[in-house]
Protein backbone atom coordinates (compact mmCIF):
# COMPACT_ATOMS: atom_id res chain seq x y z
CA UNK A 1 0.00 0.00 0.00
CA UNK A 2 1.80 3.15 -1.17
CA UNK A 3 2.11 6.00 1.29
CA UNK A 4 2.39 8.68 -1.40
CA UNK A 5 0.45 8.69 -4.66
CA UNK A 6 0.60 11.42 -7.27
CA UNK A 7 -1.61 11.20 -10.32
CA UNK A 8 -1.24 13.54 -13.28
CA UNK A 9 -0.22 16.56 -11.21
CA UNK A 10 0.19 19.75 -13.24
CA UNK A 11 0.99 23.24 -12.10
CA UNK A 12 1.72 26.39 -14.03
CA UNK A 13 2.73 29.87 -12.95
CA UNK A 14 2.01 33.14 -14.61
CA UNK A 15 5.12 35.27 -14.86
CA UNK A 16 5.14 38.93 -15.79
CA UNK A 17 7.80 39.60 -18.40
CA UNK A 18 9.20 42.66 -20.04
CA UNK A 19 12.22 43.40 -22.16
CA UNK A 20 15.00 45.54 -20.77
CA UNK A 21 15.17 49.27 -21.09
CA UNK A 22 13.30 52.31 -19.90
CA UNK A 23 10.88 52.40 -22.80
CA UNK A 24 9.74 48.88 -22.11
CA UNK A 25 9.50 49.56 -18.40
CA UNK A 26 7.23 52.46 -19.21
CA UNK A 27 5.15 50.34 -21.54
CA UNK A 28 4.77 47.74 -18.82
CA UNK A 29 3.07 50.33 -16.65
CA UNK A 30 0.06 50.15 -18.92
CA UNK A 31 -0.01 46.69 -20.34
CA UNK A 32 1.84 43.80 -18.85
CA UNK A 33 2.77 40.76 -20.77
CA UNK A 34 2.52 37.43 -19.07
CA UNK A 35 3.99 34.12 -20.00
CA UNK A 36 2.84 30.88 -18.53
CA UNK A 37 5.54 28.65 -17.16
CA UNK A 38 4.58 25.02 -16.93
CA UNK A 39 6.32 24.08 -13.69
CA UNK A 40 4.89 20.58 -13.53
CA UNK A 41 3.39 18.67 -16.40
CA UNK A 42 1.52 15.46 -15.71
CA UNK A 43 3.66 14.07 -12.91
CA UNK A 44 2.68 10.68 -11.50
CA UNK A 45 4.50 8.38 -9.10
CA UNK A 46 3.91 6.29 -6.00
CA UNK A 47 6.17 5.80 -3.03
CA UNK A 48 6.04 2.90 -0.55
CA UNK A 49 6.50 3.37 3.20
CA UNK A 50 10.11 3.32 4.35
CA UNK A 51 11.61 4.23 0.99
CA UNK A 52 14.27 6.89 0.52
CA UNK A 53 13.68 8.55 -2.81
CA UNK A 54 16.09 10.95 -4.44
CA UNK A 55 14.25 13.53 -6.44
CA UNK A 56 16.63 15.07 -8.92
CA UNK A 57 16.69 17.41 -11.87
CA UNK A 58 18.46 20.56 -12.95
CA UNK A 59 17.57 23.98 -11.51
CA UNK A 60 14.05 25.01 -12.38
CA UNK A 61 12.95 21.48 -13.16
CA UNK A 62 10.05 21.65 -10.70
CA UNK A 63 11.51 19.77 -7.74
CA UNK A 64 10.63 22.37 -5.13
CA UNK A 65 7.20 22.86 -6.64
CA UNK A 66 6.52 19.14 -6.24
CA UNK A 67 7.69 19.24 -2.63
CA UNK A 68 5.45 22.24 -1.95
CA UNK A 69 2.45 20.50 -3.46
CA UNK A 70 3.17 17.37 -1.44
CA UNK A 71 3.49 19.38 1.76
CA UNK A 72 0.18 21.11 1.19
CA UNK A 73 1.53 24.60 0.55
CA UNK A 74 0.69 24.87 -3.13
CA UNK A 75 -2.49 23.88 -4.88
CA UNK A 76 -1.89 22.15 -8.25
CA UNK A 77 -3.91 23.11 -11.31
CA UNK A 78 -4.84 19.54 -12.11
CA UNK A 79 -4.32 16.04 -10.79
CA UNK A 80 -4.72 14.12 -7.59
CA UNK A 81 -2.36 13.59 -4.71
CA UNK A 82 -3.05 11.22 -1.84
CA UNK A 83 -0.58 11.03 0.99
CA UNK A 84 -1.42 8.77 3.93
CA UNK A 85 -5.05 9.07 2.89
CA UNK A 86 -5.02 12.87 2.90
CA UNK A 87 -5.16 15.37 0.10
CA UNK A 88 -2.40 17.70 1.30
CA UNK A 89 -3.78 21.10 0.33
CA UNK A 90 -7.34 20.26 1.31
CA UNK A 91 -6.64 18.58 4.66
CA UNK A 92 -3.63 20.78 5.37
CA UNK A 93 -4.18 21.37 9.09
CA UNK A 94 -4.51 17.68 10.03
CA UNK A 95 -2.19 16.36 7.36
CA UNK A 96 0.90 18.44 8.21
CA UNK A 97 1.12 16.79 11.61
CA UNK A 98 2.33 13.63 9.83
CA UNK A 99 5.07 15.24 7.81
CA UNK A 100 8.31 17.05 8.46
CA UNK A 101 9.77 19.46 5.94
CA UNK A 102 13.23 20.93 5.63
CA UNK A 103 13.81 23.67 3.09
CA UNK A 104 17.58 23.89 2.85
CA UNK A 105 17.54 27.49 1.74
CA UNK A 106 15.17 28.77 4.40
CA UNK A 107 15.09 28.81 8.16
CA UNK A 108 12.36 27.87 10.57
CA UNK A 109 14.30 28.75 13.71
CA UNK A 110 13.95 32.09 15.47
CA UNK A 111 17.05 34.03 14.67
CA UNK A 112 17.75 35.83 17.95
CA UNK A 113 16.74 33.27 20.56
CA UNK A 114 18.39 30.00 21.63
CA UNK A 115 17.57 26.96 19.52
CA UNK A 116 15.79 25.27 22.39
CA UNK A 117 13.19 28.08 22.49
CA UNK A 118 12.28 27.39 18.88
CA UNK A 119 12.00 23.70 19.70
CA UNK A 120 9.69 24.40 22.63
CA UNK A 121 7.53 26.55 20.40
CA UNK A 122 7.30 23.74 17.85
CA UNK A 123 6.33 21.35 20.62
CA UNK A 124 3.39 23.60 21.46
CA UNK A 125 2.46 24.16 17.84
CA UNK A 126 2.40 20.43 17.11
CA UNK A 127 1.00 19.64 20.55
CA UNK A 128 3.59 16.96 21.18
CA UNK A 129 3.03 15.35 24.62
CA UNK A 130 5.90 16.09 26.99
CA UNK A 131 7.29 12.53 27.41
CA UNK A 132 7.25 11.98 23.66
CA UNK A 133 8.93 15.35 23.10
CA UNK A 134 11.63 14.53 25.64
CA UNK A 135 12.33 11.18 24.04
CA UNK A 136 12.41 12.70 20.60
CA UNK A 137 14.65 15.55 21.68
CA UNK A 138 17.07 13.26 23.51
CA UNK A 139 17.39 11.01 20.50
CA UNK A 140 17.87 13.91 18.11
CA UNK A 141 20.34 15.62 20.42
CA UNK A 142 22.39 12.50 20.59
CA UNK A 143 22.42 11.50 16.94
CA UNK A 144 22.87 15.01 15.60
CA UNK A 145 25.24 16.07 18.40
CA UNK A 146 23.23 19.09 19.37
CA UNK A 147 23.84 19.19 23.12
CA UNK A 148 26.22 22.15 22.99
CA UNK A 149 24.16 24.02 20.41
CA UNK A 150 20.75 24.06 22.06
CA UNK A 151 21.41 27.06 24.31
CA UNK A 152 23.06 29.13 21.57
CA UNK A 153 21.13 31.80 19.67
CA UNK A 154 20.62 30.72 16.09
CA UNK A 155 22.46 33.71 14.66
CA UNK A 156 25.69 32.47 16.24
CA UNK A 157 25.54 29.02 14.68
CA UNK A 158 27.51 28.03 11.62
CA UNK A 159 25.55 26.88 8.59
CA UNK A 160 26.30 23.23 9.30
CA UNK A 161 25.25 23.52 12.92
CA UNK A 162 22.11 25.37 11.93
CA UNK A 163 21.18 22.78 9.36
CA UNK A 164 21.46 20.03 11.95
CA UNK A 165 19.13 22.04 14.18
CA UNK A 166 16.74 22.64 11.28
CA UNK A 167 16.53 18.93 10.60
CA UNK A 168 15.97 18.20 14.28
CA UNK A 169 13.22 20.84 14.34
CA UNK A 170 11.42 19.08 11.52
CA UNK A 171 11.45 15.76 13.34
CA UNK A 172 10.41 16.78 16.86
CA UNK A 173 6.81 15.74 16.24
CA UNK A 174 7.79 12.29 14.95
CA UNK A 175 6.52 12.59 11.39
CA UNK A 176 6.02 9.54 9.19
CA UNK A 177 7.26 11.30 6.09
CA UNK A 178 10.18 13.67 5.76
CA UNK A 179 10.56 16.03 2.80
CA UNK A 180 14.05 17.39 2.41
CA UNK A 181 14.55 20.14 -0.13
CA UNK A 182 18.29 20.45 -0.64
CA UNK A 183 19.29 19.63 2.94
CA UNK A 184 23.02 19.64 2.24
CA UNK A 185 23.23 22.88 0.27
CA UNK A 186 26.28 24.88 1.27
CA UNK A 187 27.52 22.38 3.86
CA UNK A 188 31.11 21.22 4.21
CA UNK A 189 32.07 17.58 3.74
CA UNK A 190 31.90 16.72 7.44
CA UNK A 191 28.46 18.23 7.96
CA UNK A 192 27.18 16.62 4.78
CA UNK A 193 28.32 13.27 6.00
CA UNK A 194 26.69 13.80 9.39
CA UNK A 195 23.41 14.80 7.78
CA UNK A 196 23.44 11.80 5.45
CA UNK A 197 24.22 9.42 8.24
CA UNK A 198 21.40 10.83 10.28
CA UNK A 199 18.88 10.50 7.47
CA UNK A 200 19.86 6.84 7.09
CA UNK A 201 19.45 6.31 10.82
CA UNK A 202 15.97 7.75 11.14
CA UNK A 203 14.90 5.90 8.02
CA UNK A 204 16.07 2.61 9.46
CA UNK A 205 15.15 3.12 13.10
CA UNK A 206 11.90 5.01 12.84
CA UNK A 207 10.88 3.81 9.39
CA UNK A 208 10.46 7.37 8.15
CA UNK A 209 9.80 7.68 4.44
CA UNK A 210 12.21 10.23 3.00
CA UNK A 211 11.90 12.27 -0.18
CA UNK A 212 15.02 14.22 -0.88
CA UNK A 213 15.87 16.76 -3.55
CA UNK A 214 19.49 17.59 -4.13
CA UNK A 215 22.09 18.57 -6.66
CA UNK A 216 24.75 16.66 -4.80
CA UNK A 217 24.95 13.22 -6.36
CA UNK A 218 26.90 11.93 -3.40
CA UNK A 219 23.77 12.48 -1.34
CA UNK A 220 21.91 10.30 -3.79
CA UNK A 221 24.60 7.67 -3.84
CA UNK A 222 24.80 7.55 -0.06
CA UNK A 223 21.07 7.57 0.59
CA UNK A 224 18.65 6.91 -2.18
CA UNK A 225 17.46 3.44 -3.13
CA UNK A 226 15.46 4.93 -5.90
CA UNK A 227 15.65 8.08 -7.97
CA UNK A 228 13.04 10.06 -9.76
CA UNK A 229 14.33 12.51 -12.29
CA UNK A 230 12.34 15.38 -13.68
CA UNK A 231 13.21 18.06 -16.17
CA UNK A 232 11.19 20.99 -17.47
CA UNK A 233 8.27 19.78 -15.40
CA UNK A 234 8.14 16.30 -16.92
CA UNK A 235 8.94 13.04 -15.24
CA UNK A 236 11.84 11.49 -17.12
CA UNK A 237 13.15 8.56 -15.14
CA UNK A 238 11.89 6.59 -12.18
CA UNK A 239 13.95 3.66 -11.10
CA UNK A 240 16.42 1.98 -8.78
CA UNK A 241 19.84 3.52 -8.63
CA UNK A 242 21.48 0.20 -9.53
CA UNK A 243 19.35 -0.23 -12.62
CA UNK A 244 20.18 3.24 -13.68
CA UNK A 245 23.83 2.53 -13.28
CA UNK A 246 23.74 -0.65 -15.32
CA UNK A 247 21.56 0.94 -17.97
CA UNK A 248 23.40 4.19 -18.43
CA UNK A 249 26.70 3.66 -16.67
CA UNK A 250 28.24 1.11 -19.02
CA UNK A 251 31.48 3.07 -19.29
CA UNK A 252 34.45 2.11 -17.18
CA UNK A 253 37.57 4.12 -16.73
CA UNK A 254 40.77 2.10 -16.86
CA UNK A 255 43.98 3.64 -15.58
CA UNK A 256 47.16 1.83 -16.55
CA UNK A 257 50.61 2.50 -15.15
CA UNK A 258 53.36 0.92 -17.20
CA UNK A 259 57.09 0.96 -17.64
CA UNK A 260 58.13 3.16 -20.54
CA UNK A 261 60.25 1.71 -23.28
CA UNK A 262 61.57 3.26 -26.46
CA UNK A 263 59.81 0.93 -28.88
CA UNK A 264 56.38 1.22 -27.28
CA UNK A 265 54.59 4.43 -28.10
CA UNK A 266 51.57 5.00 -25.90
CA UNK A 267 49.99 7.05 -28.67
CA UNK A 268 49.25 3.90 -30.54
CA UNK A 269 47.26 2.44 -27.68
CA UNK A 270 43.76 3.71 -28.59
CA UNK A 271 44.10 2.30 -32.10
CA UNK A 272 45.23 -1.04 -30.81
CA UNK A 273 42.45 -1.29 -28.23
CA UNK A 274 39.72 0.36 -30.25
CA UNK A 275 38.75 2.52 -27.26
CA UNK A 276 38.77 6.17 -26.39
CA UNK A 277 41.68 7.64 -24.50
CA UNK A 278 41.19 10.35 -21.95
CA UNK A 279 44.73 11.02 -20.99
CA UNK A 280 47.99 9.69 -22.32
CA UNK A 281 51.39 10.37 -20.82
CA UNK A 282 54.66 8.64 -20.38
CA UNK A 283 54.06 5.87 -17.94
CA UNK A 284 50.34 6.37 -17.55
CA UNK A 285 47.27 5.93 -19.78
CA UNK A 286 43.67 6.56 -18.90
CA UNK A 287 41.13 5.01 -21.26
CA UNK A 288 37.37 4.72 -21.40
CA UNK A 289 35.86 1.32 -22.07
CA UNK A 290 32.25 0.90 -23.07
CA UNK A 291 31.31 -2.49 -21.66
CA UNK A 292 28.35 -2.72 -24.01
CA UNK A 293 30.66 -2.84 -26.98
CA UNK A 294 33.90 -4.32 -25.75
CA UNK A 295 34.75 -6.90 -23.19
CA UNK A 296 36.88 -5.52 -20.41
CA UNK A 297 39.05 -8.61 -20.03
CA UNK A 298 39.74 -8.53 -23.75
CA UNK A 299 40.95 -4.97 -23.42
CA UNK A 300 43.12 -5.86 -20.47
CA UNK A 301 44.57 -8.79 -22.38
CA UNK A 302 45.62 -6.54 -25.22
CA UNK A 303 47.09 -4.05 -22.79
CA UNK A 304 49.30 -6.64 -21.12
CA UNK A 305 50.37 -7.93 -24.52
CA UNK A 306 51.63 -4.51 -25.53
CA UNK A 307 52.85 -2.90 -22.36
CA UNK A 308 54.79 -3.86 -19.32
CA UNK A 309 52.00 -3.14 -16.89
CA UNK A 310 52.84 -2.01 -13.38
CA UNK A 311 49.36 -1.27 -12.07
CA UNK A 312 45.74 -1.23 -13.30
CA UNK A 313 42.71 0.47 -11.75
CA UNK A 314 39.19 0.08 -13.08
CA UNK A 315 36.53 2.50 -11.91
CA UNK A 316 32.86 2.75 -12.83
CA UNK A 317 31.53 5.98 -14.09
CA UNK A 318 30.59 8.25 -11.19
CA UNK A 319 26.86 8.78 -10.73
CA UNK A 320 27.48 12.47 -11.29
CA UNK A 321 28.51 11.82 -14.87
CA UNK A 322 25.66 9.43 -15.48
CA UNK A 323 23.23 12.10 -14.42
CA UNK A 324 25.00 14.73 -16.47
CA UNK A 325 24.73 12.49 -19.51
CA UNK A 326 21.08 11.94 -18.78
CA UNK A 327 20.47 15.68 -18.61
CA UNK A 328 22.26 16.03 -21.92
CA UNK A 329 20.30 13.19 -23.44
CA UNK A 330 17.01 14.83 -22.47
CA UNK A 331 18.30 18.20 -23.60
CA UNK A 332 17.94 19.90 -20.23
Amino acid at each position, binding site marked *: MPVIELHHISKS*FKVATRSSGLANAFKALFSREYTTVQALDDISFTIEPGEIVGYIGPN*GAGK*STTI*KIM*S*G*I*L*VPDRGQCRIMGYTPWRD*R*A*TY*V*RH*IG*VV*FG*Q*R*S*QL*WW*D*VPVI*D*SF*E*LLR*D*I*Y*KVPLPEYRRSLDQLTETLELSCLLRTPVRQLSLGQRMRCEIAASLLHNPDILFLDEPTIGLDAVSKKAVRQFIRTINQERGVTVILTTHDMQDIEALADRIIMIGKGKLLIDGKLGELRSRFGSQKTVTIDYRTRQDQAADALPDILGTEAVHLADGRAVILVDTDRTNISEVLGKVTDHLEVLDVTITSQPIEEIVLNLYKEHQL
Partner: protein
Amino acid sequence: MRPPRNLKRYLSVFRIRLAYSLQYRTAALAGIATQFFWGFLLIMVYSAFYSSSTSQPPMSLPQLVTYIWLQQAFLAFIMLWFRDEELFGLITTGNIAYELCRPGELYGFWYAKLLAQRIASALLKCLPIMGTAFFLPKSYQMMLPPDVLSAGLFIISLLLGLLVLVGISMFIYISVFYTMSPYGSLLLFNVIGEFLAGMIIPVPLMPDWLQDIVYLFPFSWTADFPFRVYSGHFHHTEAAVGIMLQLIWLTVLVTLGRLAMKQALRRVVIQGG
Protein backbone atom coordinates in the same frame (compact mmCIF):
# COMPACT_ATOMS: atom_id res chain seq x y z
CA MET B 1 -8.52 27.55 34.48
CA ARG B 2 -6.36 25.96 31.81
CA PRO B 3 -6.52 27.48 28.36
CA PRO B 4 -7.84 25.15 25.67
CA ARG B 5 -5.04 23.28 23.94
CA ASN B 6 -5.58 24.95 20.63
CA LEU B 7 -5.17 28.33 22.23
CA LYS B 8 -1.94 27.22 23.84
CA ARG B 9 -0.31 26.99 20.43
CA TYR B 10 -0.99 30.65 19.76
CA LEU B 11 -0.06 31.67 23.30
CA SER B 12 3.26 30.01 22.76
CA VAL B 13 3.91 32.06 19.63
CA PHE B 14 2.84 35.11 21.61
CA ARG B 15 5.28 34.29 24.39
CA ILE B 16 8.32 33.79 22.19
CA ARG B 17 7.58 36.95 20.20
CA LEU B 18 7.21 38.92 23.44
CA ALA B 19 10.55 37.69 24.75
CA TYR B 20 12.03 38.44 21.35
CA SER B 21 10.86 42.05 21.27
CA LEU B 22 11.75 42.83 24.87
CA GLN B 23 15.40 42.48 23.88
CA TYR B 24 15.44 45.78 22.06
CA ARG B 25 16.07 48.22 24.92
CA THR B 26 18.00 50.88 23.04
CA ALA B 27 15.25 51.18 20.46
CA ALA B 28 12.78 51.66 23.31
CA LEU B 29 14.88 54.43 24.87
CA ALA B 30 15.08 56.26 21.58
CA GLY B 31 11.33 55.82 21.21
CA ILE B 32 10.67 57.30 24.63
CA ALA B 33 12.72 60.39 23.80
CA THR B 34 10.81 60.87 20.55
CA GLN B 35 7.48 60.49 22.27
CA PHE B 36 8.33 63.12 24.89
CA PHE B 37 9.34 65.49 22.15
CA TRP B 38 6.04 65.00 20.31
CA GLY B 39 4.04 65.19 23.50
CA PHE B 40 5.48 68.57 24.48
CA LEU B 41 5.18 69.88 20.96
CA LEU B 42 1.51 68.96 20.65
CA ILE B 43 0.64 70.34 24.08
CA MET B 44 2.33 73.65 23.26
CA VAL B 45 0.45 73.91 19.97
CA TYR B 46 -2.92 73.16 21.56
CA SER B 47 -2.24 75.49 24.52
CA ALA B 48 -1.70 78.29 22.03
CA PHE B 49 -4.95 77.43 20.25
CA TYR B 50 -6.91 77.19 23.49
CA SER B 51 -5.62 80.51 24.88
CA SER B 52 -6.78 82.36 21.80
CA SER B 53 -10.07 80.49 21.45
CA THR B 54 -13.25 82.50 21.89
CA SER B 55 -15.76 79.64 22.09
CA GLN B 56 -15.97 76.91 24.71
CA PRO B 57 -13.90 73.95 23.37
CA PRO B 58 -15.53 70.48 23.53
CA MET B 59 -12.68 69.14 25.63
CA SER B 60 -10.90 70.95 28.47
CA LEU B 61 -7.16 71.58 28.20
CA PRO B 62 -6.19 69.23 31.08
CA GLN B 63 -8.32 66.52 29.44
CA LEU B 64 -6.55 67.15 26.17
CA VAL B 65 -3.11 67.03 27.81
CA THR B 66 -3.97 63.67 29.34
CA TYR B 67 -5.27 62.50 25.94
CA ILE B 68 -1.95 63.45 24.33
CA TRP B 69 0.20 61.74 26.96
CA LEU B 70 -1.87 58.58 26.65
CA GLN B 71 -1.37 58.69 22.89
CA GLN B 72 2.38 58.88 23.39
CA ALA B 73 2.55 56.22 26.09
CA PHE B 74 0.45 53.70 24.20
CA LEU B 75 1.69 54.57 20.75
CA ALA B 76 2.39 50.90 20.09
CA PHE B 77 -1.27 50.11 20.80
CA ILE B 78 -2.68 52.63 18.40
CA MET B 79 -0.27 53.20 15.54
CA LEU B 80 -1.01 51.43 12.30
CA TRP B 81 2.45 52.11 10.94
CA PHE B 82 3.92 49.98 13.69
CA ARG B 83 4.84 47.07 11.49
CA ASP B 84 6.48 43.70 11.55
CA GLU B 85 9.11 43.65 8.81
CA GLU B 86 9.62 39.98 9.49
CA LEU B 87 6.12 39.09 8.34
CA PHE B 88 6.53 41.12 5.16
CA GLY B 89 9.83 39.36 4.62
CA LEU B 90 8.18 35.98 5.06
CA ILE B 91 5.78 36.70 2.24
CA THR B 92 8.09 38.43 -0.20
CA THR B 93 11.04 36.04 0.20
CA GLY B 94 8.98 32.88 0.41
CA ASN B 95 9.99 31.89 3.93
CA ILE B 96 6.30 31.62 4.57
CA ALA B 97 6.68 28.07 3.25
CA TYR B 98 7.57 26.91 6.75
CA GLU B 99 4.66 28.68 8.39
CA LEU B 100 2.32 27.03 5.95
CA CYS B 101 3.32 23.52 6.85
CA ARG B 102 2.39 23.92 10.50
CA PRO B 103 -0.86 22.70 11.92
CA GLY B 104 -3.10 25.55 13.00
CA GLU B 105 -4.21 28.70 11.34
CA LEU B 106 -1.76 31.18 9.91
CA TYR B 107 -4.15 33.97 10.88
CA GLY B 108 -3.90 32.97 14.53
CA PHE B 109 -0.11 32.72 14.49
CA TRP B 110 0.33 36.10 12.88
CA TYR B 111 -2.27 37.74 15.06
CA ALA B 112 -0.44 36.45 18.14
CA LYS B 113 2.89 37.68 16.81
CA LEU B 114 1.64 41.16 16.04
CA LEU B 115 -0.09 41.40 19.37
CA ALA B 116 3.00 40.35 21.28
CA GLN B 117 5.18 42.80 19.42
CA ARG B 118 2.90 45.70 20.25
CA ILE B 119 2.54 44.70 23.88
CA ALA B 120 6.30 44.37 24.28
CA SER B 121 6.85 47.81 22.85
CA ALA B 122 4.14 49.34 25.03
CA LEU B 123 5.49 47.63 28.15
CA LEU B 124 8.88 49.16 27.53
CA LYS B 125 7.51 52.63 26.91
CA CYS B 126 4.28 53.26 28.79
CA LEU B 127 5.59 53.17 32.35
CA PRO B 128 8.46 55.64 31.91
CA ILE B 129 6.29 58.02 29.90
CA MET B 130 3.28 57.92 32.20
CA GLY B 131 5.47 57.93 35.30
CA THR B 132 7.12 61.12 34.16
CA ALA B 133 3.99 62.78 32.79
CA PHE B 134 2.24 62.59 36.17
CA PHE B 135 4.98 64.75 37.75
CA LEU B 136 5.39 67.40 35.08
CA PRO B 137 4.63 71.08 35.82
CA LYS B 138 0.96 71.95 36.00
CA SER B 139 0.20 72.84 32.38
CA TYR B 140 1.87 69.67 31.06
CA GLN B 141 0.74 67.34 33.80
CA MET B 142 -1.21 64.17 33.14
CA MET B 143 -4.34 63.67 35.29
CA LEU B 144 -5.52 60.53 37.04
CA PRO B 145 -8.85 59.11 35.83
CA PRO B 146 -11.87 60.61 37.65
CA ASP B 147 -12.72 57.40 39.52
CA VAL B 148 -11.74 53.74 39.89
CA LEU B 149 -14.53 52.49 37.61
CA SER B 150 -13.33 54.77 34.82
CA ALA B 151 -9.83 53.40 35.30
CA GLY B 152 -11.13 49.84 35.04
CA LEU B 153 -13.21 50.62 31.96
CA PHE B 154 -10.18 52.33 30.46
CA ILE B 155 -8.04 49.21 30.82
CA ILE B 156 -10.73 47.02 29.26
CA SER B 157 -11.35 49.41 26.39
CA LEU B 158 -7.63 49.93 25.80
CA LEU B 159 -7.00 46.19 25.50
CA LEU B 160 -10.04 45.68 23.28
CA GLY B 161 -8.88 48.63 21.22
CA LEU B 162 -5.54 46.90 20.79
CA LEU B 163 -7.28 43.72 19.63
CA VAL B 164 -9.33 45.73 17.13
CA LEU B 165 -6.20 47.47 15.87
CA VAL B 166 -4.35 44.20 15.30
CA GLY B 167 -7.48 42.98 13.49
CA ILE B 168 -7.24 45.99 11.19
CA SER B 169 -3.50 45.68 10.66
CA MET B 170 -3.88 42.02 9.64
CA PHE B 171 -5.45 43.31 6.43
CA ILE B 172 -2.24 45.16 5.60
CA TYR B 173 -0.33 41.89 5.82
CA ILE B 174 -2.94 39.97 3.86
CA SER B 175 -2.83 42.59 1.11
CA VAL B 176 0.89 41.92 0.64
CA PHE B 177 0.01 38.49 -0.75
CA TYR B 178 -1.48 40.35 -3.70
CA THR B 179 0.75 43.42 -4.02
CA MET B 180 4.13 41.91 -2.96
CA SER B 181 5.09 45.26 -1.48
CA PRO B 182 3.79 46.47 1.86
CA TYR B 183 4.36 50.15 1.26
CA GLY B 184 1.25 50.97 -0.75
CA SER B 185 -1.19 49.47 1.69
CA LEU B 186 0.78 50.77 4.66
CA LEU B 187 0.56 54.30 3.33
CA LEU B 188 -3.12 54.01 2.58
CA PHE B 189 -3.96 52.52 5.96
CA ASN B 190 -1.75 55.03 7.76
CA VAL B 191 -3.14 58.17 6.24
CA ILE B 192 -6.77 57.18 6.49
CA GLY B 193 -6.48 55.17 9.69
CA GLU B 194 -4.56 57.67 11.75
CA PHE B 195 -6.82 60.53 10.81
CA LEU B 196 -9.94 58.55 11.58
CA ALA B 197 -8.47 57.34 14.85
CA GLY B 198 -8.01 60.88 16.06
CA MET B 199 -4.24 60.68 16.00
CA ILE B 200 -3.84 63.88 14.00
CA ILE B 201 -6.69 65.91 15.48
CA PRO B 202 -8.41 64.47 18.56
CA VAL B 203 -11.89 63.34 17.51
CA PRO B 204 -13.79 65.61 19.97
CA LEU B 205 -12.17 68.63 18.33
CA MET B 206 -13.41 67.66 14.86
CA PRO B 207 -16.51 69.28 13.36
CA ASP B 208 -19.70 67.32 14.02
CA TRP B 209 -20.21 66.12 10.44
CA LEU B 210 -16.68 64.70 10.41
CA GLN B 211 -17.21 63.02 13.76
CA ASP B 212 -20.25 61.26 12.27
CA ILE B 213 -18.03 59.86 9.52
CA VAL B 214 -15.33 58.86 12.00
CA TYR B 215 -17.77 56.79 14.02
CA LEU B 216 -18.66 54.72 10.94
CA PHE B 217 -15.13 53.24 10.90
CA PRO B 218 -13.40 50.98 13.41
CA PHE B 219 -10.34 53.21 13.77
CA SER B 220 -11.63 55.54 16.48
CA TRP B 221 -12.38 52.53 18.70
CA THR B 222 -8.67 51.73 18.88
CA ALA B 223 -7.31 54.99 20.28
CA ASP B 224 -9.77 57.80 20.68
CA PHE B 225 -12.38 55.85 22.61
CA PRO B 226 -10.21 54.37 25.41
CA PHE B 227 -8.46 57.70 25.98
CA ARG B 228 -11.74 59.52 26.38
CA VAL B 229 -12.91 56.84 28.80
CA TYR B 230 -9.77 57.55 30.83
CA SER B 231 -10.26 61.29 30.90
CA GLY B 232 -13.92 60.90 31.90
CA HIS B 233 -15.07 62.45 28.64
CA PHE B 234 -17.19 59.34 28.19
CA HIS B 235 -19.20 58.40 31.26
CA HIS B 236 -19.63 54.89 32.59
CA THR B 237 -22.74 53.89 30.59
CA GLU B 238 -21.34 55.42 27.38
CA ALA B 239 -18.12 53.55 28.03
CA ALA B 240 -19.98 50.25 28.54
CA VAL B 241 -21.90 50.70 25.28
CA GLY B 242 -18.63 51.55 23.54
CA ILE B 243 -17.03 48.38 24.82
CA MET B 244 -19.91 46.37 23.35
CA LEU B 245 -19.32 48.10 20.02
CA GLN B 246 -15.60 47.31 20.25
CA LEU B 247 -16.49 43.63 20.72
CA ILE B 248 -18.72 43.71 17.67
CA TRP B 249 -16.01 45.36 15.55
CA LEU B 250 -13.49 42.82 16.77
CA THR B 251 -15.71 39.91 15.74
CA VAL B 252 -16.39 41.42 12.33
CA LEU B 253 -12.73 42.22 11.64
CA VAL B 254 -11.39 38.83 12.71
CA THR B 255 -14.07 36.94 10.75
CA LEU B 256 -13.42 38.94 7.60
CA GLY B 257 -9.67 38.72 8.09
CA ARG B 258 -9.72 34.95 8.37
CA LEU B 259 -11.82 34.67 5.24
CA ALA B 260 -9.51 37.01 3.35
CA MET B 261 -6.47 35.06 4.50
CA LYS B 262 -7.95 31.76 3.33
CA GLN B 263 -8.70 33.31 -0.02
CA ALA B 264 -5.20 34.73 -0.29
CA LEU B 265 -3.57 31.42 0.59
CA ARG B 266 -5.48 29.57 -2.11
CA ARG B 267 -3.74 31.60 -4.76
CA VAL B 268 -0.46 32.01 -2.97
CA VAL B 269 2.76 31.62 -4.90
CA ILE B 270 5.79 30.85 -2.82
CA GLN B 271 8.45 33.25 -4.00
CA GLY B 272 11.96 32.20 -4.88
CA GLY B 273 12.15 28.52 -5.78
